[in-house]
């Protein structure tokens, strides 16, 4: 299955087993979603459970929160992450804070799915990687898969959680790879990073759409690197990060979001707070630049082999 199929398969499985699951979003029903993640589900489960909503992200998210507070387990979709911001008040002030402000009397079990990132020639408004906006918000769990297997297993774990999850789907990878994905339900645990590849010289921390780019670069150039795929961005798996850094003493962080206050800043800060004495070299971030996302020049925006290698050289050659 590719990632779209893996996600679709998980939604299908869970909806079949649990009638408290409701999908809602723009064009997710009869059209099956603009990326086809919900394809066929309305035909199977009906319009009541796979809702083609009006064009209001604020309403979609707010309505889902209301459902979640009253016993349902909604899985809303925002068509592109770039369009989530009219719902941002609902996300920050309602979804993230309901458990806290009611001392657990009301909870919001929901998975807010949305495709993010560049690489599909989407320009400023169909390419954003806004994970920071969610990751900075206490109360949210932020998850992003990097391959079809993880996508299905992480979605499954997210749907089990009794807290709100922002589930970021790297749209560039939707159809990029096929993998063996079990038909049945299985879990990939939250709050656990995946050590994708093991090495001694260097730790590369990444997630989502950048994972394949990093792996290819590492393999092609025979870098002897630990590659950590975070999977859950918040709360991130600090133990795995620290263990790897203690081993290698050299760290690179790769993501597509703009650098300033991108995930890389938190990872870097958390590392130097804990284990700076293990570091042989600066922690280097390879990221998108602090500009909006350009259309025609997007290949310059996205981190690539050349930039990862340049950073690796800088780190490995240090002192």
């Amino acid at each position: 299955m590719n990632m779209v199929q893996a996600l679709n398969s998980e939604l299908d499985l869970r909806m079949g087993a649990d009638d408290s699951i409701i999908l809602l979003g723009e064009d997710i029903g009869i059209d099956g979603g603009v990326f086809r993640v919900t394809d066929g589900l309305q035909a199977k489960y009906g319009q009541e459970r796979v809702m083609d909503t009006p064009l209001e992200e604020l309403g979609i998210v707010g309505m889902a929160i209301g459902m979640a507070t009253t016993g349902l387990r909604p899985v809303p979709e925002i068509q592109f992450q770039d369009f989530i911001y009219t719902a941002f008040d609902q996300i920050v002030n309602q979804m993230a804070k309901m458990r806290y402000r009611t001392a657990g009397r009301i909870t919001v079990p929901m998975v807010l799915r949305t495709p993010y990132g560049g690489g599909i020639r989407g320009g400023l408004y169909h390419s954003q990687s806004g994970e920071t906006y969610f990751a900075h918000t206490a109360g949210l769990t932020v998850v992003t898969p990097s391959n079809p297997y993880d996508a299905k297993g992480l979605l499954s774990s997210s749907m089990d959680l009794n807290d709100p999850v922002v589930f970021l789907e790297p749209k560039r990878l939707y159809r990029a790879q096929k993998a063996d994905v079990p038909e049945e339900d299985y879990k990939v645990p939250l709050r656990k990073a995946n050590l994708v590849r093991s090495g001694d010289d260097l730790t590369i921390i990444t997630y989502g759409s950048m994972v394949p780019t990093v792996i290819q670069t590492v393999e092609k150039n025979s870098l002897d690197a630990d590659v950590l795929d975070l999977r859950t961005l918040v709360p991130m798996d600090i133990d795995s990060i620290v263990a790897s850094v203690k081993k290698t003493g050299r760290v690179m962080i790769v993501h597509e979001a703009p650098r300033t206050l991108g995930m890389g800043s938190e990872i870097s800060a958390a590392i130097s707070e804990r284990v700076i004495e293990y570091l042989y070299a600066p922690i280097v971030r390879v990221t998108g630049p602090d500009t909006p996302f350009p259309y025609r020049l997007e290949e310059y925006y996205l981190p690539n082999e050349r930039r990862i290698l340049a950073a690796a050289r800088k780190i490995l050659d240090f002192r």
Partner: protein
Amino acid sequence: MTENVNEQVDKEKYVRAYGAMVLSRTFDRKIITAQRQGRVGFYTPTMGQEATQVGASMALDKDDLIFEYYRDVPMMIHRGVPMEKLLDQIMGNSEDYAKGRQMPSHFIARDNNFMSIQSPVASNLPLATGAAYALKYRKKNSIVLTTFGDGSTSTPDFHAAMNMAAVYELPLVFLCENNQWAISLPIEKQTKAEIWKKAEGYGMEGVKVDGNDLLATYKATAEAVRKARDGKGPTLIEAVSFRMGPHSTSDDPNKYRSNTVQDGSDQDPIILTEKALKHMGILNDSMIEKIKSEAERIVTEKFEEREKIPPPEPSTMFDDVYEEMSWMVKEERGEIL
């Protein structure tokens, strides 16, 4: 509307309603005084909206859900939220349902189906649509009521919720408590249309009612509730009253308004309700006296009782961010405590 609501309900129901109004007013006065004395941090008085809220509350069943706003004390009292819990919230003490986390006036009473309050106005409305959807989906007989002010009709959330409710024909009553002010902004500057007329733009029925008239509000809400329960979709009710007090204890209305309604004057909903119920032979002066002095006694007693309760333990501040505490919060707790 053919049935005569007046005849449906017995006297006791009205006496209880009036009692809740008086208790709420007494509570208001007490908290405002306590705030001036530095015994309470903040409060948004409800004075002037008692008839609206209690009238609406009378139309609800026990299982109906309410996505309320910060000025709904009369409704909470009428629905039986213990005065203790209101006070615990205002004081933010260790027995507060929400562990003292929220500012005063941000009540929650899940047991009475009050679904908790956020500060950004009207952002409860989209949640109400979701809850109403859930009730409809589960084929429950309950409905949802959501409340908000006149100013709140300008927000994005109002628009989003109204449209969703209409499109999905939800069992939902929107009760706009038009007290004619949003802090310092009079309703004429908030919008150029009458609020009840906004319903039509969503394909929804809109109703305007005198929010100072307990019976009228009750009747209008009962009708909207019946419609919702019968699967006939949502209604927007505009209940017009007047914010008699300041916006909050931080606010000085003298800066921006000259027209007011005095506590106890003959435009005051409590006085108006007294008159109406006396006229109907339901209340008399001695009952009124008794209800008022009983309210005084309860509020004073309870206030002093709850004031003695200590604040929450500092460690509680770190709970309930997630079901399972994150390592960051654990670490931060360690640094702070």
